[in-house]
């Protein structure tokens, strides 16, 4: 689209040659990409190179090339696969709970006529508090001797004395509850923002046409909200797969190793045992797995993006 003619109608503008849309687009993403390229690729290359070498930081540091040995070692380790299984289990249940509750709460707040601002600010508090403290504090809340949860349960007269963090059957559930508490606000607020960005006209038109709430939901809200929902789903899933903070502060992979996620195991390999080679290897394997999996999930999203961008 030639814009030279239009430029001339704004006398205050300097007369300059306009650049093409393509170059303009690249200019806009340039600053962000510079940072991302440098601070993502350089460490990535470093980590990749470490994964092909022997690297035990407390025993001589970075050493020579070992080819694919690290990969073989990691892939043959049963421990690695059991942490992968734990991670997948956790992610599966947690994402369902978090998305459902998050969407529900978003709609709940959206429909509220009063106090939205306050509710929003309060709802974000779990996430806004230092996770090192909240995780630790929840350990205390879950404590069988000193914790409030069990106190309330017995106060209600229930003959149940759960050992939230000590019972191998409950450990994963306790972790999911904690993570949900932390992250449902995230889901809810983003979906809420999405709801509030929706243009009003289609809905006004639908009301004039006499459509029922359910019809509106199905034909208007859902499709228009879909990109945001998909995005939140993907972001949360990636973060759940990478779960480290909650495990480090709340369960430390306990009870037993029932909550030992892959990244916590990775962390121990890298920063407790200082086997940077194994840590890098696992990280790369993890990344490739997630890329492949999300490639499938993201394809519809990306093609929709391309379509909307391409349509001019």
């Amino acid at each position, binding site marked *: 689209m030639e814009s030279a003619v239009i430029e001339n109608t704004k006398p205050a503008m300097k007369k300059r040659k306009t650049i093409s849309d393509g170059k303009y687009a690249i200019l806009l993403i340039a600053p962000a990409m510079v940072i991302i390229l440098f601070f993502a690729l350089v460490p990535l290359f470093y980590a990749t190179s470490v994964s092909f070498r022997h690297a035990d930081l407390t025993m001589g540091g970075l050493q020579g090339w070992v080819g694919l040995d690290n990969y073989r070692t990691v892939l043959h380790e049963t421990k690695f696969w059991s942490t992968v299984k734990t991670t997948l289990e956790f992610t599966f249940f947690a994402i369902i709970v978090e998305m459902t509750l998050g969407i529900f709460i978003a709609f709940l707040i959206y429909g509220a006529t009063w106090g939205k601002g306050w509710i929003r600010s309060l709802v974000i508090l779990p996430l806004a508090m230092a996770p090192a403290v909240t995780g630790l504090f929840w350990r205390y809340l879950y404590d069988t001797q000193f914790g409030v949860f069990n106190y309330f349960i017995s106060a209600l007269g229930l003959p149940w004395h759960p050992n939230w963090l000590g019972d*191998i059957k409950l450990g994963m559930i306790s972790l999911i509850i904690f993570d949900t508490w932390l992250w449902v606000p995230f889901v809810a607020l983003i979906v809420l923002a999405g709801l509030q960005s929706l243009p009003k006209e289609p809905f006004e038109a639908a009301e004039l046409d006499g459509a029922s709430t359910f019809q509106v939901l199905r034909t208007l809200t859902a499709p228009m909200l879909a990109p945001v929902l998909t995005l939140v789903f993907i972001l949360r899933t990636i973060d759940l797969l990478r779960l480290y903070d909650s495990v480090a502060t709340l369960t*430390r992979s306990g009870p037993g190793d029932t909550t030992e996620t892959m990244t916590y195991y990775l962390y121990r390999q890298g920063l*407790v045992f200082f086997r940077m080679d194994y840590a890098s290897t696992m990280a790369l394997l993890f990344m490739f797995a997630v890329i492949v999996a999300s490639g499938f999930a993201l394809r519809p999203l990306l093609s929709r993006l391309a379509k909307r961008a391409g349509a001019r």
Partner: protein
Amino acid sequence: MKGNFWKLMCFLIVTVMVISGCGTKATTAPETAAPATTAPETTTCNDADRVPITWSTIAGFYTDAMTSIVKDFEAENCVKVTIVGIDNAQLYDKQIIEAVGETGAYDVYNIETAEKAGFAENGYILPMDDYIAANPDKVAYDDIAPVLADITTKYKGHIWGLPYYTYTQGQFFRQDLFDDPTEQAAFKAKYGYDLKPPETWQQVTDIAEFFTRKAGENLKGVPLTKDFYGIGLMAGPYQEIQDELSGMILYKGTDWLGSDGSILVKDEGNLWALKWYVEKLLPFAPPAALTVTYDGVMNQMQDCQIAMTANFFLDQWPNAANTDNTCPGAKMGIGVGIEKTTYIGAFLMGVSSSSKHPKEAMDFVAYMAGKAAQTKFASMGGSTTRVSVLTDPQFNTAESWWKTGHFAYLLKVFENMKDAKSNLFYSPYGAKLYNAMGLIYHQAAVGEKTPEVVLKELYDTFVNICGGDVCTVNK
């Protein structure tokens, strides 16, 4: 509206920059000794000339005591010491990262007994032999409890630092329960021998079983308002579970590693220890035992929930002693540990090999571990490593019982354990092996796997870490 947003952001940024600009160079205020302008100066030394030394140590660590002791050091030396407090769980990692990166950020490290060999082997710390030979009175090396000096400072024939705080284990228990006539009679009737603080593991089990009662049952003739448990254990996913097990393992005449480096973790003695722990001790501990470490046990004791600990860190005595205040009728007693075999160890201060001021750093280490500093430290309740301070009469009075009552017992433990030193402390793999054990033992404690399976897994982990079935031990 958008304009306002950016204005707001700019305003906030400028404000923050102004605030940060106006502050002094950031210090960890009270943890750093301020330039000693008010203390009587015995050297004429300008602040600008002071050699900077950074000491990385455990956070919140007797902050007041350390600050004032450091001030004393600064008064006599032209040095400025910055204390960086780091949470114990991260201390090892952080120091290693800085050591590997050779940043010279920390001049003096805080090293655990199990970590010493690794630091030395990797060349991260400097040997202090020459310094000690040149400054015999300053260091007074022989005054350090001999068994501590051996396991915490010696490796491959050199001395690698000086110990300044010991967490050697003994035992704490509710003396009032053992003195109660009702309980004594009931116990004798049930078990056939007199009730007194336990000396064998069988006695520990009997007594723990005896005192485990539900709310409503009587304790010392009075009904309980909440459940009571015979023993408190550190069975959570932390490193302390192996400290609890270590005394049991050593009692059986075995160890984690042989003196030739062979891996012994699944031998009979080790199996007995783990099984006894899981089957004969844990059932009498609160459910929370599976989730806590030493501070949890101390909280339980202070809240009238447990009758005794297993082998436990004597440096926690001030916490244990507080039970007399928090639990009506309680009177705490101290023991030397079951079968007189417990876990001994201390923190030592070592000088970084990438330090830019090694001489001053060594002076600092010598001072902090020296008699004057250790005495002051002890007066504030710190568990000192020097025999002369442990035997100092001022710390063995009725008044100082609450803070230093454990000193006499520390001496006894050192005497009892003088020949038994775990080989783990002489292996460069020590730190990693030590860091690996806790989570694995914990799996047996929660019943996720049987002791046999767990020990097999532990064995495999050891092999993994040591790169073979021998973990070098260099005594």
